[in-house]
């Protein structure tokens, strides 16, 4: 099969029926593997890794905090991608997937903020500080809220899909701008994103990096969260498709009275 033909085959999943059939087939795999990864990762991380010499056992909240933060950002990126697909190719499933993902993104952002606060209290002596990373997540949270509110406020589904897609595009640019603005405004307490560096320099174990002992269970949790996110998005998109169909049937009944 040529590359172009393969690409065309991919678009077939934009058909609601095909999407439902396929997603129902693959969903059990995502549910099981994600729960397995998270359970194993958390048990490994909570009970079979030593306490940090400086942070004590509080460090272990990292197994929830980092994967949630990762998914909070990736969820928005996924919404951006599906919004673009909707604007360019006008596949309804794509728009509905963006709609389905937003509440998951809100929850992930809230988990990241809450676990961060719980971690920050013993470490920095405060639940909240206007640190750039914390502030950026708060702003991301506001963007999610606005996005969901706009979806809810508009009755016509195609109009809602169009408007939220444009908002997602414009919002992405402004979210990025806010990130830089906030960095400039306050150079903060939060350590840099330490996971990727640890992955790149495996074996090196300095203060700022996550050491190997913590890294492998953390990686497992991150993979688990990604899989969980995919399962949730598939599940919620299926629900949105069915809700849309019911709405369309009702509207048709009204029109044809």
């Amino acid at each position: 099969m040529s590359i172009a033909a393969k690409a065309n085959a991919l678009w077939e999943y934009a058909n609601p029926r095909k999407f439902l059939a396929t997603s129902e087939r693959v969903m059990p795999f995502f549910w099981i593997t994600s729960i397995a990864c998270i359970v194993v990762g958390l048990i490994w991380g909570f009970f079979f890794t030593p306490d940090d010499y400086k942070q004590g056992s509080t460090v272990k909240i990292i197994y929830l905090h980092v994967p949630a933060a990762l998914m909070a950002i990736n969820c928005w990126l996924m919404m951006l991608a599906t919004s673009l697909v909707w604007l360019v190719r006008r596949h309804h499933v794509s728009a509905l997937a963006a709609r389905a993902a937003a509440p998951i993104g809100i929850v992930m952002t809230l988990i990241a903020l809450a676990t961060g606060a719980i971690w920050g209290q013993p470490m920095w002596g405060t639940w909240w500080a206007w640190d750039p990373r914390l502030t950026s997540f708060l702003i991301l949270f506001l963007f999610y809220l606005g996005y969901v509110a706009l979806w809810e406020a508009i009755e016509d589904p195609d109009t809602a899909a169009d408007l939220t897609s444009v908002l997602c595009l414009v919002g992405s640019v402004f979210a990025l701008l806010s990130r830089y603005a906030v960095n400039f405004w306050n150079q903060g307490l939060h350590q840099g994103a330490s996971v990727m560096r640890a992955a790149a320099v495996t074996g090196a174990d300095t203060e700022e990096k996550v050491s190997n002992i913590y890294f492998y269970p953390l990686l497992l949790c991150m993979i688990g969260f990604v899989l969980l996110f995919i399962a949730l998005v598939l599940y919620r998109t299926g629900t949105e498709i069915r809700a849309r169909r019911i709405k369309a049937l009702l509207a048709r009944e009204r029109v044809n009275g």
Partner: protein
Amino acid sequence: MIALLLRDLKLALRAGGGFGLGLAFFLIVTVLVPFSVGPQSSLLSTIAPGILWLGALLACLLSLDRLLALDWEDGSLDLLATAPLPLESVVTIKALAHWLTTGLPLVLAAPFLGVLLNLPVPGFSWLVISLLIGTPAMSVIGTFGAALTVGLKRGGLLLSLLVLPLYVPTLIFGAEVARRGAMGMETQTPLLMLAGITAATIALLPFASAAVLRINLR
């Protein structure tokens, strides 16, 4: 295009209120601040730049829901959309009219309110400069928000929810210019960033606003 601008200005003047409402709100917010934080002049002079920026931002926000809603309700937008004028120019003109009737008066009023908040003397010029550069961005971003919510019955609150996060970068850099200026620090970096944001939003955002308005007119 000029006809549209002149009409909007005329309407703002004759409606009696659209003009003054934002200013009155700005005044009240500023006057209420000392009541809530206490009258110590040292504290007031520290927070004055930020309070004045926030007050201007809120006053600007307050007037956004009327920006396109009136033309929407009476069908003017339908006819404007079919006119030879591109919708991109229509929203740009609308934003300009909004700035002239809301943003500019706020800029001019800000120094007087600065006196009430004990703004340090070097801060006055920087406050005016930062507002002068920053308020156009607020009008343009606000027009985008107004275009998004124009078809909604009670879009006012949603409009605020959508626009406020978009205002964050402008507010940060604008207030930073005013704050640094008041403390006699160098202001070049935030000033350049603020000007950059304003220039970019004026250049790019009208396309998004027009696209969104077209969708809403369907």
